[in-house]
Each structure stands twice: as C-alpha cells, then as structure tokens.
C-alpha cells in the first residue's frame, strides 16, 4: 500500500497568522487594482464585435490595423490568437457599439469588407464572428451578477440545512475568500471577464466548497467520537486525516485542468486557468481559512457545555453514518 502524508500531525492552525498575512497580501493589492482600473469585459457583456480571422500567410499586424482605421472602425483591437496566422479583431468601442443601428452585425460586415478590399477575399477566412448589441450585453451582465449571488445563496442555504450554523458561517467566509482571491487572480492575469470565466468562477465556488465540506464533515464526526479533545486539536486532526484525500483529489482535478489549459484551445484556456487557481485557493482556504475561522467563532459564541454532540446531531448525516462507534 502506497501512502503519502499518512498519519501526519502537522499543526496547521498555528500558522493562521502567517497565512492570513499571505492571503491579504495577495488579495488586497488585486482588489485595489480592480477598484482603480476595473476589468476587461468580453463583448458578451459590453456589446461589440469580435471576428476571428485566419490569414493564408502571416499578415503585417500594423497593416491590418491601418486598414481598419481607414475603414472607420473605431478602436479596433487586434491580437494574435494561437498561431501567427490567426488573429482576433475586437471592436468594442462603446460609441461604435451604440451606433449599431442597422443591427448588431453591421460592424462585422464592415470589418470583412475592409479586409477584403485590402487583402483580397482569398487571403483570409473568417473563422468566427460574434456580434452583440448593447442591450443583450447589458442583460447578460445583470444575469451574471445574479448568477454569482444566487449560487452563493443556494450553497449558503444548503450549508445552513446541512451543518450547524457555526460551520456554515465559516464555510461561507472561506468561500467568499476564494471568490475574492480569484477575482484578484483574474486581474493579475489580465483575463477578460467572459461568460466562460464566470462559469469558471461558479464552478470554482462549488469545488472549493467541496473541500471545506469534506474537512468539516470529518470535524463533525471527530467531535462526536472524541468529545474530550479540544476543538483546536480536533480541527488539526481532521485536516491531517483528510490530507491524503485532498492531495489525491486535487492531483487528479489539477491534471485534467492542466490538460485543458495546455491542449484545450484558446476558448477554454481562461476557464481552465480560473479553475486551476480555484483548486489552489480552495485547498488553501479549506485548510487555513475555514478551520481557524470555526475555532474563532466557537470561542466567540461557544456552544452549550453539554452540547458538542447535541448541537451537531441536529444535523444528522444523510448517508446514515453511525453516530456511535464502539471502540
């Protein structure tokens, strides 16, 4: 039997001061940066036009840019997309978007016409076009904000039902930490906020919560089994006991995400990156944020003396785990 990190007795919780400083050092500058300069949003949210063009032979980017400038396409952004033959042309200027009077696709038609005029129709193929009107973009933005809020509320409600409130609050704050850290990470990586990235954030919320839940599940069980041990030790013990599982699960998910990030193509990369970071921060918070928080909450609002088991047994495990074990 191959074992890693078996029967470890690491005092994770003792490190809480250091880890708090580390995580604040990561999150706060990011949040300040976001407050100052905001995010880059994809055209799904702002409205605008994106055209993915594949040239027959590598073009001069300056040439493409001046062609579009001359055609009067305001503030078009041209970026390489994968190979040096593929380019992404992004017309996201708010004034231009507002002028899509003849319909969302009018700018795409203009871009294509301008490129055809300059390079000829056979010099490039349009691989993909996305044109979004300002109204649709605005709607989606509202929806995305609601999505993050709702999934947060749903998981909160589930936790409240599933665990005793002290556990729930700790898990929710740990998740909030993960969201903030991910938002900062997105800013550091200068990723564009697209629907796929929002999907990544939501999946990350679910995933990082898993981790916390699995540790808390163990904490609850250990509290029942050994009522005389201090909470501090129980928390540490539970983290240590679930460590092999955490390492292994994260290794497998990390492997699949890494494959997606490296091989999955340009469209999926932002999603994979967000999730990869989510795995890291989720692990971090389930070990260094949630347990110390729980400890702090328990000290601030201690449960009734005889109540350790009583309070937790209110939320009985679904899988029918036996409450008592004869040892």
């Amino acid at each position: 039997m191959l074992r890693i990190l078996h029967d470890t007795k690491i005092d994770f919780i003792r490190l809480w001061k250091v880890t708090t400083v580390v995580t604040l050092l990561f999150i706060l500058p990011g949040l300040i940066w976001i407050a100052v300069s905001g995010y880059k949003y994809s055209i799904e949210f702002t409205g605008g036009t994106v055209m993915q063009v594949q040239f027959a032979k590598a073009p001069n980017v300056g040439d493409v840019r001046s062609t579009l400038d001359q055609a009067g396409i305001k503030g078009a952004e041209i970026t390489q997309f994968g190979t040096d033959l593929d380019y992404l042309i992004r017309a996201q200027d708010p004034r231009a978007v507002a002028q899509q009077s003849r319909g969302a696709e009018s700018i795409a038609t203009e871009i294509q016409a301008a490129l055809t005029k300059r390079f000829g129709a056979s010099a490039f193929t349009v691989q993909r076009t996305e044109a979004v009107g300002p109204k649709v973009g605005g709607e989606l933005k509202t929806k995305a904000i609601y999505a993050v809020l709702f999934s947060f509320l749903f998981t909160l409600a589930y936790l409240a039902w599933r665990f005793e409130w002290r556990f729930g609050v700790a898990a929710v704050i740990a998740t909030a930490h993960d969201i903030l850290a991910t938002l900062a990470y997105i800013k550091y990586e200068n990723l564009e906020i697209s629907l796929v990235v929002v999907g990544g954030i939501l999946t990350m919320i679910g995933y990082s919560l898993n981790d916390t839940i699995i540790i808390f599940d163990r904490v609850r069980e250990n509290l029942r089994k050994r009522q005389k041990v201090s909470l501090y030790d129980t928390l540490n013990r539970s983290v240590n006991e679930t460590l092999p599982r955490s390492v292994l699960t994260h290794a497998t998910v990390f492997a699949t995400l890494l494959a997606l990030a490296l091989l999955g193509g340009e469209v999926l990369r932002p999603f994979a990156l967000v999730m990869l970071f989510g795995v890291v921060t989720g692990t971090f918070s389930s070990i260094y944020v949630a347990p110390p928080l729980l400890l702090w909450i328990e000290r601030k609002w201690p449960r009734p003396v005889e109540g350790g088991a009583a309070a937790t047994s209110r939320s009985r495990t679904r899988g029918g785990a036996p409450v008592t074990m004869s040892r």
Partner: protein
Amino acid sequence: MNSNIRNRLLIILVLVAASVWALWPRTITIRERNPKTGEFHDTTRTRVPLKRGLDLQGGMYLALEVDDSKQAVQDKGEAIDRALKVVRNRIDEFGVSEPVVQKVGNDRIVVELPGIDDRSRAEALVQSSAFLQFQIADKTQALDKALGRLDGVVKQLGGTTLAAASKDTAKGASPLNLFSAADSGKAKNDSSKGDTNTVTATGGPFSRLIQSGQMPGEYLVAKNDVPTLQGYLDRKEVQAALPPGKALHWGSEDVSTGAASYTTLYLVDARPIITGEYLTDAKPGNDPTEGNYVSFTLNNEGGRRFRTETGKHIGDYMAIVLDDRVMGRPPVIQSAIGTRGQITMRGSGLQKTQDLALVLRAGALPVPLKIVESRTIGSSLGADSIRDGMHAGIAGVALVVLIMLFYYRFSGMLAVSALVLYVLFTMALLAGLEATLTLPGLAGLVLSVGIAVDANVLIFERIREEMVHGKTMRAAIDEGFKHAMSAIIDSNVTTVLTALVLFEVGTGPVKGFAVTLMAGIAASMVSSIFVVRTFFLLWLNRTRGAQTLSI
C-alpha cells in the same frame, strides 16, 4: 450474498444496455434542399444521436428583435409571434438540417442554423421584409415638373454638403420654431441662411444628379452620386417637395452607357395596385433569354383584383417592388393579367432567385426585425475545437488513470474500469436528455472525470482507515463506502447547485457546460459508488477470507 451480486450485475447490465441503446447510431430523415435545383428531397443519415452545439459543428446563431427605430410598433409581443411564424417558414424551407427557431422571453426570436456560415445570406433570409407591391410607373413626368422645386429645397437646406445642411436645420429648430410643426416653415426660416452659402451648381443641386431614362418614370443616377442623392431623399423637406401621390424607388439593376455606370430610379404611383398578401406560391425558374426568374401565383381574390387593375392600365409600365426596390425593368402591360406573373432576376444568380422565391412563399415579415446578437462559427473551427477538446480530454483522463493506478493499484484499476462506464453513462444521459454537446461541455465532461474519481478517492481512503483499525476486509469495505457517502453527497450537491444556476444564466455553450456537469455527476454516482462497490463484492466473493486488499 450471491443473489445480491447477481442483482447488482443485472442492474449494471441493464444500465449498460440502455446506454448503448441510447447511443446506438440511428437513421434520421432530413429534408434538404439541392443547392443546384432548389428542390427538396429527403435524405437519411445514420449517426450517433448526440447533438453537437454550433461551436463544435459550425453554424450561425441569430437573436432578433422588433426594429422600432423607423416606425412605432404597438403590440410587440403579438408582432413577434407573427414574425416568428414567418421566420420559421423561411428557415424550414431554407433546407438546413435541424434548425432551431424559437421565441425567447417576450420580444426575442432566436434562430440557430447548424452548418451554415454564409453570414450575409442567412441574415438577409431572416431579415428581409419580403414586402411585395405592384405599382404603376409614372407617365406624367411629375418628377421633371417638380425638379425646380426640389432644387430650391436642397439649396435652402444648405447646398451640397449634407453635414452643413443638417447643422443648419438644427439651428433652424431654435426655440422660436419649436412649436411650428410644418416643415416648410422651417425651410423658409432657413432660407436667408441658405442663400448666403455660395452654391455654384449648374442646373441645380438636385436636378443635376438625375437624368431621364428610357421609359416613363425611369431616371438614371450616376453610381457616384447615389449616396448624395440618397442623403437628400432622406430629408423630410425633400420628401415633402416630391410629387404628391407618387413614390420614388431605386431599381435593382444598373445600366451602363459607355464608361459610365448608372443606377436606376423609378417614380411610381404610391398606391400599389396589389400587394404580396394575395400570393399563394412562388417558384424559381430559368429562361434562356430572360435569365433567372421567379414565377408566382395569386389566389382567386388577388387574381380578380390584379385582372381589373391591369385592365385599367394597359400600355402602362408596371414596377414590381420588393422591399422598396424595383425588381428588374418594369414590363409594359400588354393585356389584363390574371393569377400568374413573374419577376425577372436577370442579373442575379440562381441562389438569389431561389431565396427570393422562398421568402415570397413564406410571406412578408409583419414588422421589421433587427439582429441584436449574431454568432458565426466556421465548420473548420468547430472541427479544430473538437480535436483540441479530444486531445485535452484524452491527456487529462490518461493522467487521472495513471495517478489512480499508481496510488491505488488493484483498487485503482477497479475505479478506472468504472470510469469507462462513467463516460458511457454520461454520454447516454446527454443523448437521452437531448442535450447539446458544446465546447465548454467537453470541458465539463473532462472536469467531471476528476469529480467522479474524487468519490472513489474518498471511499478508498476510508477503506484504508478502516483496515488500519483492524477490521476484516468485508467490514472495512462496507464501512468505507458508508462513511464516505455523506461527503460525496455533500460535494455533489454543491456542484449541482452551481451548475443549475449556470444553466439558468448561460447562453448556448455555457448551458452545455452546466448540463454536461450535471449529467456527469449523476453518472458518477452510479459508476463510482454502485459499480465500484459491485466490483469489490465480486472480488470479496472470489477471494473468500482475503486478508489484504491492494488499495
């Protein structure tokens, strides 16, 4: 115990059989249009019943709304319902396999055209109003008579540059004039300003752009002058000065004399003698001398009207006007025409002719529609995406398999073989739900492999702990599964909750991700727990009293 195992195996067998059946390639019938002849025919194809999203197979997505920028639309909901019917008819006749045309919310139509990446054509097909009118060409030279007046108005508006003209009117609408509704009053007020502008035009700014054509009511405009003239015609003041009871339409055909190329402009009676609402059928056709044409048939009432009206206008020219554009040269009416007629398409290709016949047949759009969102994905890009997704999936799964085999050995092998069933179940679920597999969906599938394995990791770790506690093999396995359950359910529920929210919010591709993730979780509950447990039971049965387990 033996019967227990037998029952379990039976259930797994049934599930596998059902999954294989759900995924078995089946023949489906698709109505397709022959691109050459335009005729429909049914073809059958055999394929796996898994729908691929537009981002994987290429195609177009369009979202349309009522365009009320030009005219107010009272009941948008009702208008969009009628428009939906027309758009659906058109798309059905367009001959795309498995198109989607549906209403979303109260005021939006969503159209999905798999495999179509000719953006402009599809957009024209969906958006063209297809409003057909027959109007008699003017023979009273009304425009020629009005030219003097028109020149005057244009001059008043500030000469040849439109920008200057619009600035002047903006000034003209000063507080003093705000309450004078009459356009002419505004124009008069401006005249002093307009006169100060020095316009050096020969023959007047309007009339010099126009010359008479070869038939009554026909005029020629040099191609370069078309935007300028259109600019004038867009002005209310100019519209007001046009001959009353007449309408001006551009022609669809260009005329070239020598080096110069002209666009035709027609003055016709504003009242149509008949409109396309009486049309019952339209067919594309080809004639060696006339070129491509669309022949149409009117219903009885339309035929009667047409006959009386054309009877009154024998010897006149009749313009066939589609969406405010005169199609071809107006033919002369030789005798009263009944229920049949044709629109010549001389210059246009066969495809355009077919599309025109199609939109005429499907009926006119009751309200103009504008595109609020459009996505086009080339089929080669879709194929690239599938390839990338596959590579990532294979690499990801291979890594997971390696980790599991390396760490858990024999038990890892059981988990990995359950993974094969997991993929089968997930695919079958997607096929059964008629869900669409998208590129993010592929990511969801890869990711849920990791989640499926997580359940096994939880179980195996528990079994190890129970073994350390000195339980017998059978008891350790039982307890391991039991204790891991609550953690597995918890983690799956939270993931499903977020996936549900994503499903509600997301558009096509992201919805696909949410569905795949949920299907994956459902399948993993069966494969990672039920199937792996059965494997363990089988193993226990074979090696009675085994003291060690490779885990």
